[in-house]
């Protein structure tokens, strides 16, 4: 089952601290949404409001079109997968997974079958009688997912569930989460501070900062055309090139920005290269290191030797520190003066 979620003008305050400022967000049924931002940006608060653990100070939460603002977690069609998994330590895995069904009055045999089916989905079918403490972190993770999905929620809320796993396991779980989400079709709302994780799994990314939504869009949109300097920086490395008013810079591309008159020109490291849509002028290579998929090169522009640009150049480029080359840019992101 699946449902849409609509957040309307939600504001949330803790004593004097405003965690969320009038947030509006529409999530389609069956979407995989990632709330992304630094700690303290309000993403977990927003998740708790969708899950019913907090009642917002102002505003409304609709799930599947029904007003859920004042409904508790127990009566919402949502389940949450907690950061520390929150498994019940005294119950076997099968009992953990079947707990929600038991609370809904499902008979013993039926809930046992469903629990085994869910454990099978996450690849733990043979471990149903084990206790949580006998499992590794990644396995507990899967049990928590199976438990949350066993009650067929319309919306699954995931609170930084991959934070405690090591990098390799995290990448593997991201793929599994994405695959399971596509299989069950439930709306997933996932909280993380890891932008790579967000890009790996999200249909849409919601970038949050200081209790506000900075940008909401597909990974491509958010990465390539960030709406604010904050989301530009948060989604990955950016070279910022300040352009003074009156000193127009020509960005002679095809779909071209006209001449830019004052503001900040932002370029991802991979958008600077030896070819491109517009010239950035000559620069000297300060130092470079090889990263496998690319060379990470630190350039100092001849016009402003105190600045440093970082460019990712393709493998096989033969440049040495001290070499002077003309650099070109593409896919520019431009913020007018007042936004930067």
């Amino acid at each position, binding site marked *: 089952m699946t449902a849409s979620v609509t957040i309307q003008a939600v504001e949330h305050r803790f004593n004097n601290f405003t965690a969320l400022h009038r947030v509006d967000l529409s999530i389609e049924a069956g979407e995989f949404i990632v709330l992304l931002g630094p700690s303290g940006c309000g993403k977990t608060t927003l998740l708790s409001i969708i*899950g019913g653990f907090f009642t917002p100070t102002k505003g409304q939460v609709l799930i599947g079109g029904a007003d859920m603002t004042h409904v508790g977690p127990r009566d919402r069609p*949502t389940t949450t997968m*907690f950061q520390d998994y929150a498994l*019940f330590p*005294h*119950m076997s895995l099968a009992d953990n997974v079947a*707990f*929600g069904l038991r*609370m809904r009055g499902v008979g013993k045999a039926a809930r046992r079958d469903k629990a085994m089916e869910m454990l099978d989905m996450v690849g733990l079918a043979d471990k149903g009688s084990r206790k949580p403490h006998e499992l590794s972190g990644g396995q507990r993770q899967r049990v928590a997912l199976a438990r949350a999905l066993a009650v067929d929620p319309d919306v699954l809320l995931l609170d930084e569930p991959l934070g405690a796993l090591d990098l390799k396991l995290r990448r593997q779980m991201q793929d599994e989460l994405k695959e399971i989400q596509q299989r069950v079709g439930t709306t997933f709302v996932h909280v993380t501070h890891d932008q790579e994780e967000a890009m790996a799994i999200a249909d849409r990314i919601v970038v949050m900062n200081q209790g506000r939504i900075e940008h909401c869009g597909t990974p491509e949109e958010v990465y390539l055309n960030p709406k604010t300097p904050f989301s530009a920086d948060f989604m990955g490395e950016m070279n910022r090139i300040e352009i003074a008013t009156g000193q127009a810079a020509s960005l002679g591309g095809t779909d071209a920005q006209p001449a830019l008159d004052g503001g900040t020109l932002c370029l991802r490291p991979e958008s600077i290269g030896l070819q491109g849509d517009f010239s950035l002028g000559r620069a000297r290579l300060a130092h470079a290191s090889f990263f496998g998929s690319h060379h990470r090169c630190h350039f100092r522009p001849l016009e402003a030797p105190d600045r440093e640009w970082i460019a990712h150049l393709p493998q096989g480029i033969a440049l040495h520190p001290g070499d002077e080359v003309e650099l070109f840019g593409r896919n520019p992101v431009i913020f007018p003066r007042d936004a930067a």
Partner: protein
Amino acid sequence: MRILSWAYLIALFTFILLPVGVLVVFSFQDGRLPVPPFKGATLEWYASVLADRALMEALLNSMIVALISAAVSLTLGFLAASGLARVVLPGSVLMRGVLIAPMTVSYLIVALGLLQMFGKIGVRPSLLATGIGHVVINLPLCFAIIYASIGEHQKNALKAARDLGAREWQVLWLVAAPMLLPSLAAAYFLAFTFSWDEFIIAFLLTRFDVTLPVEIWSMLRSGLSPETNAVGSLVFLVSIVIVVALELLLFRKGAK
């Protein structure tokens, strides 16, 4: 250094255990007085303890008061701890403080207060009054032990249970209680032992039916006898059994 530390260890244990050891040894005294010299071993005093109706009744009374008052303290302490762990209310800190406060008051003061209050509202000194007194001193203890064992992890598990559709009593009964079982058991056994050994409150709040420590006290008034040592040894044995059971059942399991 090594010899010194061993000597220290032996001295420490001697200091702690000598009084109890002497008590136990002279409970086997073949003579009228439980004082040196040791004249030989006999089980005569144990036989007379077990044949003493008043003592056996007091022992039964103590058992009943301890079992029930510990159960009440545990239940109230568990409910208070899970409630305060669940929500942050204005004044949560104050509420916790007030709950724990009786622990800092001497048993004598608690007993005096209860005596006066019971006098006012017409509750006669009795086992019931003593049991209530024991709940007053043991509830803070149970609350503190259980509250301390509810960490972030346990709170999240309780949240998860509510999220999955459990009603509040189901959360408490199916998740909180089994999950906190080790600390619940520790709290219960401690409350039981404290009630079992408690003298001042029981002394002031009982009259005709008395608990074992009060009965032992009245035996002592008629002078020393190996029989009091024998009762004392039996009381000590019960405490030992509880401590060992606790160790074997709970802490051993927890360490695994």
